[in-house]
């Protein structure tokens, strides 16, 4: 094992030998290594966010015909660092009447739940935080905990807007979780494992070629899970001032902010791992460090798409958002999963091109059928109210009140 | 090692706390939460039997899985009923719902 090919495991090996040499018991060494490793990973992730913010602001600036950050450091690279220092030095303000415990713990959950997902993501052939056999379920479970960050924040703030925002957010997250979870099933089914590393290893070809529609739905729903534009109803500035984090300031707000960006990047990681072949690439097995490179290239590409969507799409109205998941995405994802399972079983597994061709054909057929059906039903009462704007605004306010 | 009895006694206590809550709380929502506690006590019991006595069999695990499904269904319907009652009678108080009084 050479330092160049696999620096992280090299250092870990060296460190464990060092500690053992000091005469520490092996169990303790393992625990210490885990603590050091997770601490490092979390720190790297948090620092990576500064780059992400810069990246996003730069791209959005270009799209909106501006420069973006360009004062602090070369190309404005240190802008985020400056913001960070500013946020560290700000005063913590707790408004009157907050529910202290949820108010305090909400930002911690918001960041922690995202970071926890990194624990099971395989960054390269032999670098994965913990090789959990039910990694997919773990990610979903952690996603469920992440919702508590929003609920706690919204409830604890003792603010009407924050509470309404939490309502919206929870409704949106629960609704979009259905197709989200169903789309997780496709890679699980195709690879026959819930272990993320196994899924990555099984991607020959990448699953996006076997299940393009599944990948599309996954991409859409994961954006909704993050709550980014066009699904950022929870912090719709024009309606709710700023969302569930309206009463937060200083570092607490900063944590929400960081959690948001980190979450966006995490779903890009997941998308890359589940559908774009993860760390796979030429010689990635032999030289694990290449796996990092491939993986970050792929996920940055996915993240670029997320940013593009943010910059170019208007926000959904709440009833459209709900209709979209329950009436379109959920049935569609169920169809895709069941049909993929059926067709993949029928196609010969060893003839790769037949398999790819058959599944792509299936996806095209389903897509066209969905398109036709939507065309037909768009004129029916199912979606009628969407076409009447003044009526719908009333409807959305009613829905808000009822939650 | 932890003896089986610890788990069973823990589950019994948890079950009875839940039972007390189901009987004594006024708010229907709270009753539902206590019901979840009772179901969890049952799950603990099943899994501890599995872990200590029937580790090679799958029945306990299947049972637990189905209890999860039943709990989800129960919560969904229970909450729907509570919301519906709340809409019609503007109360979620178990004591106020005595239309069947003799």
């Amino acid at each position, binding site marked *: 094992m050479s330092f160049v090919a696999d620096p992280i495991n090299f250092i870990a090996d060296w460190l464990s030998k060092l500690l053992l040499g000091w005469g520490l018991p092996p169990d303790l060494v393992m625990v210490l290594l885990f603590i050091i490793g997770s601490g490092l990973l979390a720190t790297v992730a948090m620092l990576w966010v500064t780059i992400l913010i810069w990246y996003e602001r730069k791209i959005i600036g270009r799209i909106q015909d501006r420069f973006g950050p360009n004062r602090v450091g070369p190309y404005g690279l240190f802008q985020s660092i400056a913001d960070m220092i500013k946020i560290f030095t700000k005063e913590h303000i707790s408004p009157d009447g907050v529910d202290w415990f949820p108010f305090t713990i909400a930002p911690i959950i918001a960041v922690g739940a995202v970071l926890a997902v990194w624990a099971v993501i395989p960054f390269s052939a032999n670098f994965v935080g913990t090789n959990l056999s039910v990694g997919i379920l773990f990610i979903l479970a952690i996603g469920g905990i992440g919702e508590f960050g929003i609920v706690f924040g919204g409830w604890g703030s003792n603010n009407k807007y924050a509470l309404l925002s939490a309502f919206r957010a929870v409704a949106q997250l629960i609704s979009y979780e259905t197709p989200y979870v169903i789309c997780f099933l496709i890679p699980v089914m195709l690879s026959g494992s819930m272990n993320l590393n196994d899924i990555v290893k099984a991607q020959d070809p990448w699953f996006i070629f076997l299940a393009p529609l599944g990948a599309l739905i996954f991409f859409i729903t994961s954006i909704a899970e993050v709550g980014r534009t066009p699904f950022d109803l929870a912090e719709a500035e024009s309606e709710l001032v700023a969302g569930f984090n309206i009463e937060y300031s200083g570092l607490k707000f900063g944590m929400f902010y960081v959690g948001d960006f980190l979450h966006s990047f995490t779903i890009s990681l997941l998308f890359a791992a589940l559908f774009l072949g993860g760390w796979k690439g030429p010689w990635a097995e032999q030289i694990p460090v290449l796996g990092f490179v491939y993986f970050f290239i792929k996920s940055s590409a996915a993240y670029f798409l997320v940013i593009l969507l943010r910059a170019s799409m208007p926000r959904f109205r709440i009833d459209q958002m709900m209709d979209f998941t329950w009436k379109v995405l959920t049935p569609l994802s169920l169809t895709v999963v069941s049909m993929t399972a059926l067709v993949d079983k029928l196609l010969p597994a060893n003839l790769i091109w037949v398999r790819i061709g058959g599944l792509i054909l299936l996806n095209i057929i389903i897509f066209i059928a969905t398109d036709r059906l939507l065309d037909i039903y768009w004129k029916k009462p199912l979606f009628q109210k969407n076409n009447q704007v003044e009526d719908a605004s009333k409807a959305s306010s009613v829905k808000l009140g009822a939650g | 090692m932890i003896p089986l009895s610890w788990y069973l006694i823990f589950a019994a206590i948890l079950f009875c706390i839940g*039972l007390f809550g*189901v*009987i*004594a709380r006024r708010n229907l929502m709270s*009753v539902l939460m206590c019901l979840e506690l009772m179901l969890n006590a049952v799950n603990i019991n099943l899994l501890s039997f599995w872990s200590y006595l029937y580790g090679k069999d799958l*029945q306990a695990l*299947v*049972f637990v899985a189905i209890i999860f499904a039943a709990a989800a269904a129960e919560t969904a319907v229970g909450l729907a009923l509570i919301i519906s009652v709340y809409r019609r009678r503007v109360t979620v108080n*178990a*004591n106020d*719902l*005595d*239309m*069947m*009084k*003799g």
Partner: protein
Amino acid sequence: MSMETLVWLIPLPPLLSFAVIILFLGRQKAASHWVALSAAGLSWAASMLVFAFAIQKPNLAAAPILSSIAWLPVGKGSFNVGVQIDPLSSVVLFFVAWTILMIFIYSIGYHNFGQPAGSDDKPGLPPHGAEETHHHETHRVPSIEPLYARFFAFISLFAFAMYTLVVTDNLLALYFGWEVMGLCSYLLIGFWFAKPSARDAAVKAFLTTRIGDMFMLLGLAALYSVTGTLNYREVLSNPAVLDKLASTASPIAALSWAGLIGLLIFMGTVGKSAQFPLHVWLPDAMEGPTPVSAMIHAATMVSAGVYLVIRFYPLMAAGRLDGGQTPPMVAMAFIGAFTAIFAATIAVAQNDVKRVLAYSTISQLGFMIAALGVGAYVAAAFHLVMHAFFKALLFLGSGSVIHGMEHGALHSGDEVDPQNMFEMGGLFRKMPLTFWTFLAGGLSLAGFPFVTAGFWSKDEILSGAFGGGYMVVFITLAAAAFITAFYTMRQVTLVFLGKPRTQAASSASENSLVMTLPLVVLAVFAVAAGWSANWFKPFVGSMLGESGIEASTSLVPLITSLCVSLIGLLAGWLLYRGYEARQPDPLENILGPVYNLLKNKYWIDEFYERVFMRPAAWVANVLVSVWIDKIVLDGILHWIGRAGLSVGRFLRSKFDLPVINTGLETVFGQSPLYVGNGMKRAQTGRVQEYIIMAMIVVILVGVIVILVVPI
């Protein structure tokens, strides 16, 4: 597809049909009957395949067609559900499949498919007929049933339950089918729910059979707790289990577990097969759509009760000494024979064409139960099959008669009761096909010698009773057979022979082929099925290991059944051939006051009303308040008062008022009120307080169990 899979699939099509019709075809009349009919046809075809396979399979009783899956994990094992086709279930499957298919076909015609919708027909009421203009003249024609699709949904569900009950291999699934049939029976009897009489009859049927079902459930629970299984083969084909059941004493004194469980299961049959004293619901069940629900209550569902006891005969007979009877068998012999003659005598004096058949059904079911009670296992099974065919035929035939009469009544505008036999007559000219098929069924029911199925099966039962030496049962059943022949001929004569006695009868007309074709098919079976006796006996008899009871070689039963049948038929014809319209029933002259007793069904309904329904009110209103309080106590007091005013006054002030009036009135008159008011307080309507009560009772029971039963 293997035979086992096919057996699994038999009950499925009707269930799907039920779901499809209920969910999607509520208003599609034609589509609903096509769906139901094709479902029944599929099940029929599968049943016939299974039957054909079963009768060819050698040694079917010892090696039946079996298949089961683990359903519910219980303790270390699991509760299995599965299917089992042995000789008994294969023959039952045969007749069930045929009769169900025939009902389905017949129903299309009976509900006037193809006719216009009536202008004033309402859902929940029988159709009244529609005006139709034809060649510039308006006349009334029958109109289609408004809830046509719903009817097919219900009988599909019914067919599903019946098939489930027949093919299953355990008592729990049988109980499931049994209860679903109870539900369907309720729904179908109350099909015309806007008629108060139909509503009442539905409730009555449901509640009465519920009494039996409750006992059966107890028996099921007892069986499970004693043996740990409800599977037929593990209990009934297992001599070790049967011996153990027969030799261990149950908590009820003087009964073994086998005896107790047998009696409890038999109670279920008493409810479902309408045996005395729970027979009262069956005649009222004729309120349903005439032939179809009636036939469900005659040919298939009530057969389920008999099927159950035949199935559990090894348990009932467990511990039986040579030629002796176990307690359940004594009960069956007694109740069966009594019901047979009891219901037959009632049937003699009925004038509603369907009620005669209803009581005849009760009576014939009594024959089967009695046959089991004397150990004539094969005879009971044989009569079950034969009876299903000819009674189905008779009911469909009577439905056809009623339909024809209704048509005639609409046509002639004559306001007659289309079900009253005394207003018919001479129909054999108008409805020849119905007449001949009805005659075939009637002769079979009466046991017309040698050519009909009923003769052979009844002869089997009589010779079983005679050969076993049960002379009381033998004589009773022979008498019942005589009466059966008599009322059958009475019915045939009144309905079909002679001259038309009303306008409606003279303008009645034959029904369409869709109604008469099932009659023809069933008539063939009603006659020809009896010829299979020689094959049937060893086939079903192999279920018991030996060939059941040895049939008597004596000629006495044969001659008896021959005589009673012929004499009964002759008597019926002689008495009624000259009947004229609006005369009293000729039987009334002969029997005198007994006729009234029979006509009112021994006042059983009134008896129940008096004994079980009024006493609560009576005890409070009459006994306590009037008799004890006013007449007895007040009378005594008045007498005392007259005897000595001063003494009276003294007693009155010191004894009467405080002790008698207040005290006893409190005890007898007021206490129900107080208790009621007190108990009422327990019904707070708050679910949590109910939980407290329930849990406290559970704890008390637990404490008692712990104290009594050492763990």
